[in-house]
């Protein structure tokens, strides 16, 4: 990891950014000796040092944040640390970058912000991480304890605001335990079902003297996680699968978070069970495999929605049966007995009743199931049916010569131009759905998106976090929409400063396109506030930030432009002008029947 840290810092030496130089000097001398430095660590003398020591002890290498009054003592302690801090342009970006770092690396991403507006700017990113169960630790400054509750300058009740959107949060009110609070929050973010945690740090607590070293990262005694499922139910579930004639696996984001992709692949292939994924489950199973039905749900493939509707046994792993997946509950997999594997007992039978509740870690439980299986289900006819659906409801799209460039074509060309391990991040809207549908994902932790919260503007900051977490040989591509990109594009300044090799492709239709599509379908074409024909020229804007700008208007520009942008060593932005009338299909309307997905507007 030390090479990466220094490769990131190297461009900053010439640019002389506010935060870079100190780290650049230190990374050369101290990073390599970190392994043996544990015993030589200077004892902590302040609360803030204890906070940073807790992060170091947890193995944290990167943090994303924005300075500010109440968090200054923590930043001052961070100044002496080997942790590489990426100064973001906006706290929301810091939260999304930390979130994406957590998705790609599997370890909690760290974000920092000051009190008041710093903390409230993090809120969207924290809520996003909470909905998607991404591991993240947010550290927020707070006004000194004596001012708390007095409406002091930049005071917000941060723990109050974030209680509904964190896995756990703490107001840390003692310099002697502040480090241990951070250790515990780190452990809680990653253990069991991951999620965001927050520690609120009053300025006088972090400034205060203490010689208390933080405890090791450890979850509190009251937090228990069940790893193995009840063997009796495992046995019953295995018998059910064996006797099933129409089995289907439904892999959710929990498969990826639980590092169960390999176990699920083996299970599916061994027993020849068709595999459907949820949106967060994208990448858990290779989409180019014969058994892959790809994503189900509102904009899932027709074949995935047919399979999920007609299966007689559904093995749902690490999914919370979100309404965008299920459509109407009454018509969701109505003939299927549900085997539900989840580490969070509260997800069992929350939306869909589980006939076989298997509580535990995804990999452990899938392995238990695999060991319990004696034969494979007899499902030759079902598999043939699934293949038939794949051809009946092919995702092949029309690209008429007389229309502007179709978005699907751009997504496919990008996929073509990059490796299998390329990481894709997105904003939210039509472009996100095309990125799901027309990119062939084969590896876990290569799909980084805002699923549950649906946060427009997630794409670019998450690409920054993903870039830092990803290996050097993985390309990072942000497929964005014009509306989404405009929300957080100040992050380009960060990407330029850090010289991050990111390719942003804006599928620009000068609409907030998903809203436009719904207005056409459900609001008589009344385009209230959805026309975005006031967009800047994104290629020129990129150049103004110091990134490389490109523009696509015609089909014959697509391949070469993408190649040039991918080859560019640093941040680049392609402003791809696509057909403004392009719509996303298939589509299951809200609360609709998955099996009745529309293939065009007249079927809605």
């Amino acid at each position, binding site marked *: 990891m030390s090479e990466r840290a220094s490769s990131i810092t190297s461009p900053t030496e010439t640019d002389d950014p506010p935060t870079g130089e100190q780290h650049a000097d230190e990374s050369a001398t101290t990073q390599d000796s970190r392994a043996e430095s544990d015993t030589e660590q200077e004892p902590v003398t302040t609360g803030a040092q204890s906070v940073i020591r807790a992060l170091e002890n947890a193995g944290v290498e990167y943090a994303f944040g924005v300075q500010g009054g109440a968090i200054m003592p923590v930043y001052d302690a961070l100044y002496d640390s080997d942790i590489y801090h990426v100064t973001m342009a906006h706290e929301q970006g810091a939260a999304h970058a930390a979130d994406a770092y957590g998705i790609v690396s599997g370890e909690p991403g760290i974000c920092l912000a000051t009190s008041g507006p710093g903390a409230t700017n993090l809120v969207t990113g924290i809520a996003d991480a909470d909905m998607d169960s991404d591991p993240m630790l947010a550290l927020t400054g707070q006004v000194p304890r004596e001012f708390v509750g007095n409406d002091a300058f930049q005071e917000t009740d941060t*723990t*109050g605001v974030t*209680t*509904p959107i964190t*896995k*756990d949060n703490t*107001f840390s009110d003692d310099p002697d335990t502040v480090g241990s609070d951070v250790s515990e929050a780190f452990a*809680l973010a990653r253990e069991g079902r991951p999620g965001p945690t927050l520690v609120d740090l009053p300025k006088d607590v972090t400034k205060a003297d203490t010689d208390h070293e933080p405890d090791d990262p450890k979850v509190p005694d*009251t937090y*228990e996680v*069940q790893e193995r499922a*009840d063997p009796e*139910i495992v046995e019953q579930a295995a018998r059910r699968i064996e006797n099933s004639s129409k089995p289907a696996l439904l892999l959710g984001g929990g498969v990826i978070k639980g590092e169960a992709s390999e176990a699920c692949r083996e299970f599916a292939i061994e027993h020849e069970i068709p595999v459907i994924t949820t949106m967060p489950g994208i990448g858990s199973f290779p989409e180019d495999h014969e058994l892959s039905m790809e994503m189900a749900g509102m904009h899932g493939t*027709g074949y995935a929605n*047919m399979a999920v*509707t*007609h299966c007689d046994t559904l093995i749902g792993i690490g999914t919370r049966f979100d309404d965008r997946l299920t459509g109407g*509950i*009454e*018509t*969701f997999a*109505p*003939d*299927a*007995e*549900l085997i539900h594997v989840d580490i*969070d*007992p*509260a997800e*069992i*039978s*929350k939306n*869909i*009743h589980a*006939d076989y*509740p298997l*509580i535990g870690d995804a990999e452990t439980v899938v392995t238990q199931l695999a060991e319990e299986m004696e034969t494979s289900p007899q499902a030759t006819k079902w598999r043939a049916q699934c293949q038939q659906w794949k051809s*009946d*409801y*092919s995702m*092949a*799209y029309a690209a008429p010569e007389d*229309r502007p460039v*179709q978005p699907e074509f751009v997504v496919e060309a990008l996929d073509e131009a990059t490796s299998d391990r390329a990481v894709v991040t997105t904003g939210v809207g039509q472009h996100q759905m095309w990125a799901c549908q027309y990119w062939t994902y084969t590896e876990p932790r290569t799909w980084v998106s805002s699923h549950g919260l649906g946060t427009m503007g997630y794409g670019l900051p998450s690409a920054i976090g993903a870039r830092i977490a990803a290996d050097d040989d993985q390309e990072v591509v942000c497929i964005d929409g014009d509306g989404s990109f405009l929300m957080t594009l100040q992050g380009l300044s960060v990407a330029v400063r850090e010289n991050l090799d990111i390719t942003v492709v804006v599928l620009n239709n000068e609409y907030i396109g998903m809203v436009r599509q719904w207005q*056409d379908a459900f609001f008589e074409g009344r385009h209230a506030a959805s026309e975005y024909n006031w967009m800047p020229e994104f290629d020129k804007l990129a150049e103004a930030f110091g990134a490389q700008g490109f523009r696509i208007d015609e089909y014959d520009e697509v391949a070469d432009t993408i190649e040039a942008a991918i080859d560019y060593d640093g941040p680049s932005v392609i402003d791809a002008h696509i*057909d403004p*009338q*392009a*719509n*996303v*299909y*298939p589509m299951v309307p809200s609360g609709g029947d998955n*099996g*009745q*997905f*529309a*293939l*065009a*507007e007249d*079927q809605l």
Partner: protein
Amino acid sequence: MSGGLDGPAPEERPTPKGRRTAQGIRVDPEVEAQHDPRRTVISALVEHEPGVLSDVSGLFSRRQFNIESLTVGPTEDEDRARITLVVEEPDPGIEQIKKQLRKLVPVVSVQELEPDAMRRELALVKVNAMRPDRVAAVADMFDGKTVDATPETATIEITGSDQKIDSAIEAFGQFGIREISRTGTTALARGMTDTAREAPPEESAQNEPTQPQQPHADDD
């Protein structure tokens, strides 16, 4: 408009026969399964620290769980407080409440009480005291205690089940009620049965079957 795909239209596709209830339960069309709301008492042992009560009450409001009353107080262990909740939900909702409560990090243990559990509420009822003798007679009928008396008012303390208190309030209504304050229900399991206590890990197993219970037979 563009972006449409080819393939059989919705009406040309096979449709499955089954369906689910709005609670996500697969329905055998022969046996319609629908859970009616029931009232029950849930006891939660929690860390005695600031913010836990707001965590719990916030959970109930944001998940739209129907809560009748919530009481909180210290326990035999100074590090623990007990929260007693009376809720009215269908069985899947009650299961969700228990599971969501268990997920809160400061919550140590959660238990739904049996119908025979001891449940008590205290109420202070301030009535007009134009007829002190008759007020005292009604208070007697409900084992009430007069805690304050002035020429104009009498305040009676009543303890018992919520139904008993409802009845008492109704009976006092004839005098003209000036103010009422009720504590909400607190409860403990009977005898050697534990209410909700620090449990060895296996007791927190979550695969509890959902057994519809009888409405609580009250002990008063």
